[in-house]
């Protein structure tokens, strides 16, 4: 391993601009003559729009235009779509309601944009917005999905009776039922997987500009996938043909899924920019983000696990109600189905699984993928059941897991996933040792002396990443393929531009992708520039999410590098007057095997462009190769997280006093960056488990609408983590990468709650386990114990 190659903890190239304040995020971009738009959003959860009077607003100082849904509708542009068709059990397609960029007829959630005011300054736009008169007829609303699906609930969309989007299922109903009938023991639990607000620190932003001379549009947008944004806005919204629409994702300050989707705001900015022929700029305020960024999770689940006399799992049955909010967001349909149920086997060999998912509309912000997207929900179900069962059997949680682990690969689960390679025992064993599991008893007794309850919890998780094999997801209803592209452009003086369709928003691609290219070509990492985030520069790509940039993005780079090497060897053969098959490329030199005749990379590059010394009729001048890589399977990162908590029984505060993570991500390009991904994922999972509570009241008001009420994890909510890895290479891609971006968020909630339920001695507690919630659970437990005596 070289100091800057695969496996090296290379410090990041992009950090220079970030630590000096020279990053360029979308709000940092300013265009001559720009106007500012402020969105007017429904203050009601469900209301008819009777009358919108913009006359007074339009007359305010500095105002350029005020637009309503009615005006936008006149443009005949399309609405926003969900791009993944999920079918109900009866074969009927999901009930996707129309989603106009500005509400027409009625508003369906607090925050639904109904109008926009544009002015010379943002202050003027906000002043004008206050003068817009909107006559709302408030309708009854519903925020609870069970209530929304029940008889008599207010109907949100005509196309969806009982507000039901789909009733989906996976697995063998009858075989699973039989397994439960024959079971020796059944563990049953009900859970809430609490709704989360993603809260990337950079609020969403868009800046649209129209060039009337070329009739073309440019959009700067905080997006994780500029090409997908362009495709959807071009083909579905009909804004402009793709070749007349450029989308630029500059530096993006975190995404976690929330910046994958195509939202109303960028569509309105584009439409407005062309209408008024001036750039239109929008940046969300944080409380605006709370009511407009897609939320995550929001499942209510009943699940049961069947065991035989030998404590082996024989069946799993799951019923989930998934709240998708007021409209179907871009990937929303797939999250509680194909990204969820297919992981319900966990790390275990479970012969029969049956899962039903009912997706429902409510008058809340739309719900879509958020770090882990379906896999944290699956892990939560499986790992809480297994841990609860271990307690019911009074055997060690590790022991019950070991008994049931998949031990031989490849393993075909009963929920479609084909696990390729893994060693679950190895990560469990390493985690136990690193955590000093043996010492827990002693630590528990010492906590007790101080009047505190100590608990320990496991999460042995698995995820499906490296999204995704195109034909497979196509069969499942996806409207797009999930391959990735790379182009290696060698310059005459030997430096390289690496163009990728992935887009970093914290993952360090400018460094890790450069490590890969530099090592392969034997050049310095400073000679490699990673180009991304601009549809004018990179031809097409699917973006970054689902832990795909390593497994899929880097595989495309390898393919392109293979082509570069092949062509370079052809040229080298001519330069060195040898047979092509005798050329060896190593450490940046092309050598005739068995001789000392060689040419260095830099010389080769120049020769390719000078084109004097090889037959250009047979070999084209230049050295530039592109590749598209379509994965043949998902990848399956997996691991073991152990959480130790200490609970103060007076206040209910659960402190995390220890965390050990041992993950198998296959090949690791930069361990420093990979560990950072684990740290960040764990923090989000801890946030879900202990702090983050998204509360809607009965009037559909988002009560937790800012950081005053929504508790974000801070540095003193977390300890330092012990992070280590085991490695079983992924067999399905050239580098053996599984991916690491979501693991922490997937494992953490189950680990925390298993620790808390261990400490409390009760399973009856839901996330977030705030001090009030823990304290109440403690009182209930004490009461029922007293009653039992």
């Amino acid at each position: 391993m070289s100091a800057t190659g695969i496996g090296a903890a290379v410090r990041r190239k992009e950090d220079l601009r970030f630590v000096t304040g020279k990053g360029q995020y979308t709000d940092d971009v300013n265009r001559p003559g720009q106007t500012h738009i402020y969105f007017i959003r429904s203050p009601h959860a469900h209301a008819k729009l009777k009358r919108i009077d913009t006359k007074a607003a339009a007359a305010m100082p500095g105002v350029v235009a005020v637009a309503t849904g009615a005006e936008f509708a006149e443009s005949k542009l399309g609405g926003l779509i969900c791009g993944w068709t999920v079918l109900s059990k009866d074969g009927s397609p999901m009930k996707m309601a129309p989603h106009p960029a500005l509400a027409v007829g009625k508003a369906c959630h607090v925050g639904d944009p109904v109008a926009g005011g544009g002015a010379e300054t943002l202050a003027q736009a906000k002043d004008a917005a206050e003068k817009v008169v909107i006559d709302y007829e408030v309708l009854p609303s519903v925020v609870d999905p069970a209530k929304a699906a029940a008889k008599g609930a207010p109907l949100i969309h005509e196309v969806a009776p009982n507000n039901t989007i789909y009733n989906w299922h996976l697995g063998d109903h009858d075989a699973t039922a039989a397994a439960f009938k024959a079971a020796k023991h059944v563990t049953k639990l009900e859970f809430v997987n609490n709704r989360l607000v993603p809260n990337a620190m950079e609020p969403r932003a868009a800046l649209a500009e129209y060039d009337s001379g070329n009739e073309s549009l440019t959009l700067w947008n905080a997006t994780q996938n500029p090409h997908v944004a362009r495709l959807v806005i071009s083909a579905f919204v009909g804004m402009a043909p793709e070749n007349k629409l450029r989308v630029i994702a500059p530096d993006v300050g975190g995404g976690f899924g929330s910046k994958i989707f195509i939202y109303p705001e960028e569509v309105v900015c584009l439409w407005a920019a062309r209408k008024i022929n001036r750039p239109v700029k929008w940046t969300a305020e944080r409380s605006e983000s709370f009511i407009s960024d897609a939320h995550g999770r929001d499942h209510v689940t009943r699940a049961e696990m069947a065991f035989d006399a030998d404590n082996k799992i024989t069946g799993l049955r799951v019923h989930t109600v998934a709240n998708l909010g007021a409209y179907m967001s871009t990937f929303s349909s797939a999250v509680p189905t194909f990204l969820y149920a297919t992981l319900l086997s966990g790390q275990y060999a479970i012969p029969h699984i049956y899962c039903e998912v009912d997706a429902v509309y409510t008058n809340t912000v739309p719900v879509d993928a958020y770090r882990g997207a379906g896999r944290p929900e699956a892990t939560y179900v499986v790992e809480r059941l297994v841990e609860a069962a271990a307690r019911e059997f009074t055997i060690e949680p590790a022991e019950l897991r070991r008994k049931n682990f998949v031990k031989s690969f490849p393993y075909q689960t009963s929920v479609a996933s084909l696990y390729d390679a893994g060693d679950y025992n190895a990560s469990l064993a390493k985690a136990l040792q690193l955590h000093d599991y043996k010492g827990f008893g002693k630590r528990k007794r010492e906590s007790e002396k101080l009047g505190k309850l100590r608990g320990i919890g496991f999460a042995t998780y698995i995820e499906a990443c490296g999204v995704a094999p195109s034909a497979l997801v196509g069969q499942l209803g996806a409207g797009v393929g999930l391959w990735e592209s790379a182009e290696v452009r060698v310059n005459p003086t030997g430096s390289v531009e690496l163009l990728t369709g992935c887009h970093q928003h914290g993952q360090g691609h400018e460094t890790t992708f450069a490590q890969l290219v530099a090592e392969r070509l034997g050049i310095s990492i400073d000679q490699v520039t990673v180009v991304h985030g601009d549809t004018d520069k990179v031809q097409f790509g699917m973006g970054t999410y689902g832990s795909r940039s390593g497994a899929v993005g880097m595989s495309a780079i390898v393919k392109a590098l293979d082509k570069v090497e092949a062509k370079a060897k052809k040229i080298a053969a001519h330069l060195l007057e040898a047979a092509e098959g005798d050329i060896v490329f190593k450490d940046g030199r092309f050598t005739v095997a068995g001789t000392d005749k060689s040419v260095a990379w830099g010389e080769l590059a120049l020769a390719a462009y000078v084109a004097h010394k090889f037959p250009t009729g047979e070999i084209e001048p230049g050295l530039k190769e592109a590749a598209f890589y379509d994965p043949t399977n998902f990848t399956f990162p997996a691991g073991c997280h152990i959480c130790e908590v200490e609970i103060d029984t007076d206040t209910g505060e659960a402190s995390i006093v220890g965390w050990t993570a041992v993950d198998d991500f296959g090949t690791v390009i930069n361990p420093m960056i990979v560990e950072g991904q684990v740290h960040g994922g764990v923090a989000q999972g801890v946030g879900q488990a202990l702090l983050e509570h998204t509360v809607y009241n009965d009037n559909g008001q988002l009560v937790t609408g800012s950081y005053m009420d929504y508790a974000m994890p801070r540095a003193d909510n977390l300890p330092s983590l012990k992070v280590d890895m085991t490695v079983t290479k992924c067999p399905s891609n050239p580098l053996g990468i599984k991916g690491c971006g979501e693991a922490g968020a997937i494992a953490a909630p189950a680990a925390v709650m298993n620790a808390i339920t261990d400490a409390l001695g009760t399973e009856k507690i839901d996330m977030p386990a705030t001090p009030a919630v823990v304290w109440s659970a403690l009182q209930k437990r004490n009461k029922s114990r007293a009653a039992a005596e």
Partner: protein
Amino acid sequence: MPSISMKVNGKDVKADVDPRTLLVQLLRENLRLTGTHVGCDTSQCGACVVHVNGKAVKSCTMLALSAQGADVLTIEGLAHGAQLHPMQEAFREHHGLQCGFCTPGMIMTAVDLVNRKGNNLAEHTIREELEGNICRCTGYHNIVKAIAAGAKAMGGGVSRQAAE
């Protein structure tokens, strides 16, 4: 529109501003110093932290007019030309940032923390003192390491390489 004048990163600055203008808006929009960021609207996230007369201040919660005559230091003023400030260097060395959005505010808070509490900072001190800075990417693990190392380096000490 009232006029204001102040020093920003050592340079004299004059501007005419709407009285509602926040200090962060003056910096970002009038002066085009976009390194200071806005991440929330309730004064909690810390992405906007700058130094005013030597103390850390959330520039989103201060009117520009209140900074009349003040000496303001932003992230852009920390480095000396190509020479990074030890705290900036420490963040890079210890991977104390991922998306970079909270980073300028984190670094400015960290420098202020060292100014107030010295060069040998315990882990729990750093964690508690970061209550006014939110990061969504890093889980704080490496930020804490970076600040401890940067603090030592600011005292002329050798900052230890991250053990992990």
